[in-house]
């Protein structure tokens, strides 16, 4: 028998993804719809000997092609005729959810209506007469409790047994479709036609609701009671700060970082010596040994050891998102974001930017307008991502040992302020014509489905793994090559290497900032490949082996480096200028590649590179020359 094709469609926040995950489990593939940055999720199920392919269409309120998601759904139904289309409806929110249902039926798409979370609806005093709803549409109506395996099996039974051609739209629906056709041919202006049709759809919804649904408003819902603290007045800000503080504690102190340290230790103490020994006894050439130990294991290991931290952070974020709290964060932050020319929804990708810019740039696709997406993508690189932390931590420990925490805080602050200022500048210049908007559903608070949280975190975090396996791998080889070779072949004198040549050419640009040594030039160049490389390059070049950036070792590392010529290469003021520059300059190549992918434009990628470098150059110049004028050294 041929594979049965099933499409899931519905509004956002209906539990559609949870149903999709329950149906397909890990047997799903996440790709991209052609030409847009919307996830395409497809999964395979086998049930009673039938192969069923399920596609999870992006959640939309309508199919008017006002957003990328709506465009995708609208195009999908124009180009495909799946055997079965299931419209997932949040039973508690049926009135607004039926809008999409009716629009789909106007397009002649036969549907199964699936009422999800009926239990929650009943708690809210909403009773739905399934039989009357079936009659009203002339289409089958089923119901599920999102997370239960039993109800998902019931759905599979429906898929394999339903014969959609047996169903015909009811008289009520055909009447409505006639009315819509009349409006379309009324000769009114296009916008008026659209508005008349929207009104006609809600007329029909009101009719169906009056017939099939009883609503007994049960006073304030739990969600509203919670929102009077979590999304209201000053308390909302306090709770938000605490929530994010806890999240970063979990990621950086309690779970993520300890795991990362374990993994890093494994690379340094177990894998590297074991590999060295194995190569030694096998008589591998010296250069090959050097490449594997100093290049690949060190470079890839440094990035892989961040993986537990990144996944912990993503699990926390997906969990918070699944509860519905993230919508409140956007709500609370909107007044602040608006002053920078952004929408409240833009806070999410920016928060991720403190972890890693790559998922943050990808996260911008969830924003409503082109302007919001572009500005968010372009200012994210200014924020202090994980990979930049070692730079400030090390320099602060070396040159300001009595004020480490203050210096680190100041550098975070420099990043945030620059991001805000540049957002404002971009929104009043390049993107002046476009408006930022904020219209956001506040879904009821729910306990998220663990499977969905984990799958989402995996989907977002695996990009990091791919980065470690590809770009960082290639980069480690490249840096090793550039620092070990010159035109005469392999060399032990690093200041004779290709890297030294590149470094001194680059360094000339930084004479006015006070850090024009070839070593800092080389560190800046390798930092474009990955920010993690700034510190490791410095370490290699100044000959302080075994640099560690872990908290307890940072002072030892700083002492070790100070003892080298590096101590004399920077004045404290030049060190600050260097920190400011590395905070702000070019996104790393992985981030640049992501910008290219998300904006679908080489031009914007080039812009992101040059304008961040320019901003960084000017900011570090102001710091150095300004500092000198004020009498600092």
């Amino acid at each position, binding site marked *: 028998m041929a594979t049965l094709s099933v499409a899931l469609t519905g509004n956002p926040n209906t539990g559609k993804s949870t149903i999709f995950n329950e149906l397909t489990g890990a047997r799903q593939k996440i790709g991209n719809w052609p030409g847009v940055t919307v996830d395409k999720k497809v999964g395979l199920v086998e049930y009673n000997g039938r192969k069923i392919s399920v596609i999870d269409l992006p959640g939309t*309120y*309508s199919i*008017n092609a*006002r957003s990328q998601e709506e465009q995708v759904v609208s195009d999908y139904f124009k180009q495909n005729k799946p055997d079965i289309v299931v419209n997932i409806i949040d039973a*508690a*929110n*049926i*009135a*607004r959810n039926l*809008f999409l249902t009716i629009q789909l039926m106007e397009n002649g798409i036969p549907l199964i209506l699936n009422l999800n979370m009926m239990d929650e609806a009943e708690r*809210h005093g*909403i009773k739905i007469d399934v039989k009357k709803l079936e009659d009203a549409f002339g289409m089958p109506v089923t119901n599920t409790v999102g997370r239960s395996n039993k109800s998902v099996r019931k759905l599979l039974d429906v898929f394999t047994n339903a014969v959609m051609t047996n169903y015909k739209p009811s008289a009520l629906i055909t009447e409505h479709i006639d009315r819509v056709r009349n409006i379309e041919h009324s000769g009114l202006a296009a*916008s008026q036609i*659209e*508005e008349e049709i*929207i*009104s006609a759809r*809600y007329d029909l919804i009101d009719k169906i609701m009056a017939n099939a649904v009883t*609503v007994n408003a049960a006073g304030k819902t739990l*969600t*509203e009671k919670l*929102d*009077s603290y979590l*999304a*209201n*007045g*000053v308390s*909302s*800000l306090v709770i938000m700060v605490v929530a994010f503080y806890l999240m970063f504690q979990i990621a950086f102190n309690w779970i993520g970082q300890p795991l990362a340290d374990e993994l890093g230790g494994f690379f340094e103490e177990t894998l590297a010596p074991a590999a060295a020994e194995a190569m030694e006894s096998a008589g591998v050439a010296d250069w090959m040994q050097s490449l594997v130990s100093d290049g690949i294991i060190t470079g890839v290991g440094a990035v892989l050891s961040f993986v537990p931290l990144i996944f912990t952070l993503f699990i926390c974020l997906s969990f918070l998102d699944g509860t519905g709290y993230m*919508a409140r964060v*956007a*709500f*609370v932050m*909107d*007044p602040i974001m*608006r002053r920078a020319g952004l929408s*409240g929804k833009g806070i999410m990708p920016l928060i991720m930017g403190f972890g890693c810019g790559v998922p943050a740039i990808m996260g911008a696709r969830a924003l409503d307008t082109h302007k919001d997406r572009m500005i968010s993508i372009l200012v994210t690189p200014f924020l202090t991502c994980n990979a930049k932390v070692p730079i400030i931590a090390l320099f602060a420990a070396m040159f300001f040992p009595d004020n480490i925490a203050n210096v680190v805080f100041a550098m975070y602050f420099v990043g945030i302020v620059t991001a805000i200022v540049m957002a404002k500048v971009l929104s009043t210049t390049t993107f002046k014509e476009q*408006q930022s*908007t*904020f*219209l*956001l*559903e*506040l*879904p*009821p608070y729910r306990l998220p489905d663990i499977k969905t949280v984990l799958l989402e975190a995996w989907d977002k975090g695996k990009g990091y793994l791919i980065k470690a396996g590809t770009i960082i791998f290639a980069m480690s080889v490249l840096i090793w090559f550039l620092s070990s070779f010159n035109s005469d072949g392999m060399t032990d004198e690093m200041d004779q290497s290709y890297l030294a040549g590149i470094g001194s050419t680059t360094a000339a640009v930084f004479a006015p900032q006070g850090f024009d040594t070839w070593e800092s030039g080389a560190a800046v160049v390798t930092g474009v490949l990955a920010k993690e490389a700034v510190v490791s390059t410095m370490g290699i070049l100044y000959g302080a082996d075994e640099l560690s950036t872990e908290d307890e070792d940072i002072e030892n590392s700083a002492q070790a480096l100070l003892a080298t010529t590096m101590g004399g290469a920077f004045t404290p003021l030049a060190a600050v200028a260097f920190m400011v520059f590395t905070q702000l300059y070019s996104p790393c190549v992985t981030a640049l590649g992501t910008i290219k992918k998300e904006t679908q434009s080489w031009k914007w990628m080039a812009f992101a590179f040059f304008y961040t470098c320019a901003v960084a150059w000017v900011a570090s110049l102001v710091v150095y020359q300004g500092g000198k004028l004020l009498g600092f050294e």
Partner: protein
Amino acid sequence: MTLKDTQPGMVVRIDSVGESELKQRLMTMGLLPGTRVEVLNSAPLGDPIAIRLRSYNLAMRRDDAAHIEVSQVKEA
């Protein structure tokens, strides 16, 4: 009066949705003449606001709410 001028706790009925870039999106979300709207709460500086209509909650900016004419049904 417009939805912009409402306070948390008020219940209003929409009289008309004025022209704006958001008009069709607002209507799609169920903001139509005759719709009953309850104002729930607001972000720290009183903007944006959260409203309840058709059994769900929606957040919007007061500037966008200024395009929506309403009559008061119940005081705060």
